[in-house]
C-alpha cells in the first residue's frame, strides 16, 4: 500500500490535537469550579469549601501541566505537516494563535502561581482574585483557539491574493459567523466535563464515606449545575447546527445522513452510509423529525450530500456516527441529571449506591463526547482545510513523504503513550489519595515541594516505595 502523507498527516494532527484537547477541556471547566469554591469559602467561611478547593486545585495542577506539555507539540504541527497552509494563512492564524500563547503565559506568570502556591501566604481575597483570573484566562485562551478554528470553517474578513490570505477586517475575521456558536458550545462542553468529573469523583468518595460533608455539597452543587447545563447544551448545539446548515450545508447533510436534497427528512437513528453508492443501508429513522428540528416544519427542505461533487464530500460514515455518539452521550447526560433530581426529591442522592456508581462511570463520557464532536466538525469540513478556499491537499507540506509522516505518527503515539500513561496513572493516585484526613495521606518529603511548577502543587508519590514518614 502506498503511504499517503496527506492521510497520515491528518491522522497525526487528529491524534495530537485530541490528546491535547482533553486536558484544556477539563481545566477550563475546573478552573471556574475552583473559583466558585473559593468564592463560597470567602463568603461562608465554611471549611468544607476550603477542603474541596484544596483537593481540586491539586488535580487542576496535574492536568494543567499535562496540557502545557502536549501544547508544545501543537505549536509546531502547523509548520511541520501543513506548511503550505501555514504560509497561506499566517497573516491571520499567526497573530491569533500567538495571542493564545501570550494569554496562556500571561496567565501562568501572573496568577497561576498565586492560585497553586499562595494558600495561607496571600490574603484570602487575593487568592480568590487569582482563582477568578485563572478561570477568566482559560476562557480567553479558548477564545483565540476557537476563533482560529472557526475561521477555518467559516472564513471571513480576508482576501486571497497570490495564494496568501490578507486580513481586511480583524473584527470580521476573529468574530467569524460560526465563532459565537462554537465558543458557546465548547464553553458549555467544558462546564459539563468539569461537572461530570467532579460529580463522579465526589460520588466515588461518598461510596467510600470519605469526607462526606464536603463531597455531599460538591455532588449536590454539580447535579444542580448539570440539570441546567445538560439540556441547555442540547439547545446551544441545535443553534450551532442551524449555523452549520447555513454555512456548511454539506457537513450538516452528512451529520443527518441525508444524501438527496428533499423535504420531510427523517431523523435517522441507525444507518450504514455507503459513500460509493451515495445512499444509506439499513436506515431506521423517525419520519419528518430532521426537517422539524432543522426547519421547524415537517415539510422543510434539507440539503443533501449530493449537492457537493463526490470528490468534495466528507467521509459521511465517520461524520454520521461521530455525531450520534456525541448526541447519544448528551442525552445520557440529561437522563443522569434528571435521575439526580428525582432521587433528590426522595432524599437519596447521597446514598443510592447504584446512582453513585453510575456517576463514577460517567467520568470518561464527556471526554468521549467532546472528541466525537470535534470529529464531526473537523471531518465534516473535509476536503476543505479553509472551507471553500483551500483543501487539505493544497495545505499539506509539499516535501513531506509517506515514510516521514509514518515515522512521526508512530513516534508521537509511542511518546504520548508512555508520557500520558504515567500522567493518568499519577492523576488517579492523586484522586485516590484525595480528601483523606492529613495523617492518612501519603505524601512525599518536603524537598519535593519546590514550588513554581504546576505539578508540584500535588504531593502524592508516584510509586509505592516513597517512605511516607519523611516529612
Amino acid at each position: 500500500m502506498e503511504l499517503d502523507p496527506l492521510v497520515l498527516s491528518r491522522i497525526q494532527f487528529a491524534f495530537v490535537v485530541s490528546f491535547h484537547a482533553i486536558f484544556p477541556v477539563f481545566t477550563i471547566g475546573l478552573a471556574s469550579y475552583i473559583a466558585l469554591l473559593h468564592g463560597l469559602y470567602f463568603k461562608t467561611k465554611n471549611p468544607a469549601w476550603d477542603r474541596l478547593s484544596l483537593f481540586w486545585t491539586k488535580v487542576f495542577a496535574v492536568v494543567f501541566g499535562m496540557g502545557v506539555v502536549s501544547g508544545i507539540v501543537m505549536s509546531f504541527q502547523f509548520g511541520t505537516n501543513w506548511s503550505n497552509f501555514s504560509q497561506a494563512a499566517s497573516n491571520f492564524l499567526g497573530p491569533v494563535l500567538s495571542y493564545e500563547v501570550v494569554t496562556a503565559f500571561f496567565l501562568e506568570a501572573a496568577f497561576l502561581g498565586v492560585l497553586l502556591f499562595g494558600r495561607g501566604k496571600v490574603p484570602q481575597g487575593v487568592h480568590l482574585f487569582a482563582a477568578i483570573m485563572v478561570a477568566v484566562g482559560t476562557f480567553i485562551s479558548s477564545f483565540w483557539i476557537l476563533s482560529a478554528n472557526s475561521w477555518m470553517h467559516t472564513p471571513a474578513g480576508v482576501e486571497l491574493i497570490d495564494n496568501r490570505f490578507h486580513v481586511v477586517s480583524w473584527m470580521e475575521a476573529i468574530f467569524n459567523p460560526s465563532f459565537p456558536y462554537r465558543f458557546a458550545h465548547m464553553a458549555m462542553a467544558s462546564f459539563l466535563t468539569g461537572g461530570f468529573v467532579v460529580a463522579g469523583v465526589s460520588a466515588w468518595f461518598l461510596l467510600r464515606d470519605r469526607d462526606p460533608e464536603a463531597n455531599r455539597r460538591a455532588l449536590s452543587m454539580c447535579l444542580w449545575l448539570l440539570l441546567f447545563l445538560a439540556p441547555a447544551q442540547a439547545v446551544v448545539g441545535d443553534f450551532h447546527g442551524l449555523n452549520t446548515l447555513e454555512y456548511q450545508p454539506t457537513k450538516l447533510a452528512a451529520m443527518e445522513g441525508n444524501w438527496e436534497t428533499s423535504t420531510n427528512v427523517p431523523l435517522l437513528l441507525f444507518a450504514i452510509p455507503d459513500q460509493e453508492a451515495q445512499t444509506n443501508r439499513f436506515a431506521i429513522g423517525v419520519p419528518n423529525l430532521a426537517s422539524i428540528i432543522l426547519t421547524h416544519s415537517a415539510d422543510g427542505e434539507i440539503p443533501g450530500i449530493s449537492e457537493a461533487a463526490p470528490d468534495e464530500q466528507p467521509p459521511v460514515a465517520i461524520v454520521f456516527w461521530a455525531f450520534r455518539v456525541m448526541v447519544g452521550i448528551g442525552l445520557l447526560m440529561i437522563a443522569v441529571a434528571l435521575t439526580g433530581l428525582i432521587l433528590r426529591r426522595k432524599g437519596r442522592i447521597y446514598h443510592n449506591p447504584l446512582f453513585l456508581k453510575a456517576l463514577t462511570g460517567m467520568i470518561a463520557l464527556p471526554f468521549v463526547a467532546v472528541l466525537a464532536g470535534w470529529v464531526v466538525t473537523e471531518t465534516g469540513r473535509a476536503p476543505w482545510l479553509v472551507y471553500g478556499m483551500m483543501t487539505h491537499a493544497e495545505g499539506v507540506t509539499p516535501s513531506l513523504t509517506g515514510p516521514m509522516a509514518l515515522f512521526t505518527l508512530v513516534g508521537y503515539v509511542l511518546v504520548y503513550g508512555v508520557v500520558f500513561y504515567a500522567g493518568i496513572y499519577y492523576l488517579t493516585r492523586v484522586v485516590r489519595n484525595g480528601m483523606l484526613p492529613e495523617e492518612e495521606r501519603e505524601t512525599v518529603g518536603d524537598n519535593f515541594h519546590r514550588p513554581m511548577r504546576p505539578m508540584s502543587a500535588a504531593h502524592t508519590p508516584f510509586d509505592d516505595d516513597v517512605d511516607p514518614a519523611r516529612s
Partner: protein
Amino acid sequence: MEMFDLTLIWAFIIGFGIMMYVLMDGFDLGLGILYPFAPDEDARDVMMNSVAPVWDGNETWLVLGGAGLLGAFPLVYSVFLPALYIGVFLMLAGLIFRGVAFELRFKSRRNRHWWNRAFCWGSSIAAFAQGTVVGAYIQGFRVENFAFVGGPFDWLTPFSVLTGLGLMAGYALLGATWLILKSEGHIQDWAYKITPLLLAIVLGVFAIISLWTPFVNPAVWERWFGHLQVIWIFPALALLCAFTVYRSVKRRREGIPFVATIGIYVFTYLGLIVSKWPVIVPPNYTLWDAASAPESQLFLLIGVLFVIPIILTYTAWTYWVFRGKVRVGDGYH
C-alpha cells in the same frame, strides 16, 4: 505605517527570544547532558533541584518563538519546520520526556532510575537537534516558490552533526558553570574540574566550524573576508570571554564563569547573525521576504509588547526568589 520598519522590530524581538531561550534552556539542558557523569545521586538531586523552579519558564521562550515566527516571519516557520521535520520531532519528544522526568523523578523512588534516563536522553537529544538547526541554517535550504523542496535528511550532514555536538558541549558548559554558581562542596569541585575540559571541547568545535563554514557557504566567506572588518570584534570578544571562563575557574570564582559563558554565547550568536544578515531563509530569502503582512505584524506587536515585560519581570522574580546555593539534602528533614 511606514514611519518605522515593523520587520526590523520583529527581527529584534524574535532574535532576543531565541537568545533568551538558548541561554535559559541551555543550562538546564546542559545539566541533563552532564547527568550520567555526575559523581553521585546527591549531585543529581542538586543538579535537578537547581533548575526545577525555572525550567518550564525557560521553555516559555520556545513556544513563544514558534508562535511568534508563524505570526511575524511565516516563511521561516514554513520552511525550517518541514526541512527539519525529523529533527523537530526528536527535539519535541526529548523535551517532553525530560519535562515529565522533572515532575515525576522526585515523586518516585523505585522508578527513579528510569526518570534519570529520560532526563538525560531527553536533554541530550533536544540539545543535539537544536544544534543541527544551526548547522542547517548555515548550509541553507532548497527552496522553490516559497516552499521547501529538499529531502528528509538534507539537514543531517557531517557539518550539522558537528554543530549538533558543538551545541551539546556548549550547553554542558553552561550547565557546569551554572552548577559552580549554585552548588558547593564536592559537587562544586566536580563542576570546577569539568569546566576547563568542556571549554576546550567547545573551543575546538568552534574552531573547526569556523574553518569549515566558508567551504559550506561561500557567501559567509565573502562577509568575513570582505571590507566589513569591524565584525571581527565578535569572535575576538567571544575568545576573551572564553579566556575569562578559564581564568576565573582557576581562581575558583563562583559567578564569573557562568556570566562569561553567557558572553561566549552572545558574541558567537552575534557573529552568526552578521555572517548571514539580512538573509533569514538561506540562501535567498531576506527578513523582508519572509515577513508577514504589516497589519498582521502590527496587530501581534501590541500584545507582545504588553506581555514580554511581564514575562521578564516574572522570570527575574523567580530567579531572585530561588537565588543562592542548593544544598545536598535540601528539604530532606
